[in-house]
């Protein structure tokens, strides 16, 4: 049964790749999220200042403002500690993953990903 649009949780997908955003959108919509997109950290910051999402799927390496910088700024925004933030990056070095967690990320997905991995990680982050 389709959810009432008013009950949908908002997820902001932040990635400079249109293809990744498209794949993530399809998976997240299947999991019951309403999805918004941003192409870099600065665009994402403007987005959260107008509507704070429940979940942010966040790339690391992006032009203008990278994911880590965005995360630091997000957590300083009013209400910015509320969204679950799941990094989604090609970075698979454990030190980088540790760094993301230390900066306030709730979970971490290494690309490439599929629907099962996203669902598993969102469950672990408490976003599902």
């Amino acid at each position, binding site marked *: 049964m389709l959810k009432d649009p008013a009950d949908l949780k908002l997820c902001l997908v932040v990635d400079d790749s249109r293809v990744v955003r498209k794949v993530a959108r399809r998976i997240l919509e299947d999991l019951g999220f309403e999805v918004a997109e941003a192409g870099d950290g600065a665009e994402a910051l403007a987005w959260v200042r107008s509507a704070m999402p429940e979940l942010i799927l966040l790339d690391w390496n992006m032009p203008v403002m990278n994911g880590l910088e965005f995360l630091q700024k997000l957590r300083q925004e009013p209400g910015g500690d509320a969204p679950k933030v799941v990094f989604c990056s090609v970075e*698979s*070095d*454990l030190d980088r*993953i*540790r760094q*993301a*967690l230390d900066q306030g*990320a709730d*979970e*971490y*997905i*290494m690309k490439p*990903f599929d629907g*099962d*991995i996203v669902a*598993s*990680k969102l469950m*672990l982050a408490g976003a599902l």
Partner: protein
Amino acid sequence: MIARLCAQRAGLKVDPEKTYLLENRLGPVARREGFASVHEFVSALSDRSQDRLIWAAVEAMSAAETAFFRDPLTFERIVNETLPNLAQRRRAGPLRIWAAASGTGQEAYSLAMALEESAPGGASLEIFGSDLCERRLEKAQAGVYSQFEVQRGLSARRLVRHFVGSEEDFALSPRVRQAVRWRRVNLLDDLSRLGQFDLIVYRHQTGHLLEDARHRVLANLQGALAPGGCLVLGETDVAPGLAAVPGRPGFYRHSSPVRAFG
């Protein structure tokens, strides 16, 4: 023939109609053993002297689906309720835990990680992992997992805490890897040589067994439980006659000895 061999050797239920399953599981074994096709490999199994090949086929056909921390609530209950209760009652010696049919090791290592986090330097524990399949055991013993495998059920915090990384593969820390001892076990065999266990975890497996084999395996596992011990199955596993723990789906108490079939 494959269905018959699987039934005879390990009590496995194999649907001969599922030809894709035969291709998927036996294809890699056939190639490894130098056969041109699965058909050629299966033909070679009619020679009874090919015991090693027959076992390779049966092992490959046994269920392999697994993940770290599958059904997380079950792990929470084991770590926060079952093991503390068992530890309280235990008078001497370590608590003995067995992850039976543990496949490539995720189940046993999930227990090892959770227990290390909950009681570092606390209760003395022995964790034992087993599987029917030699090749899966080799992977379990190596404790090295792909990027795909460490993202199924394992949190990023546990990943950075318990693994050492590389670009594509992730190796368990020696501390966790050495906490588990491995052995090939056919659960239809006499298990008395393994001793008794306070906790046996055998999840999501009964559905892959023929009915007689399921009775026999469950009776064998009950027989391997120490008095007061606990058997943990999957919530949907079928286990008629076992003493279920109320309000804890999949958890069963040690009960009076049940005679194994056969």
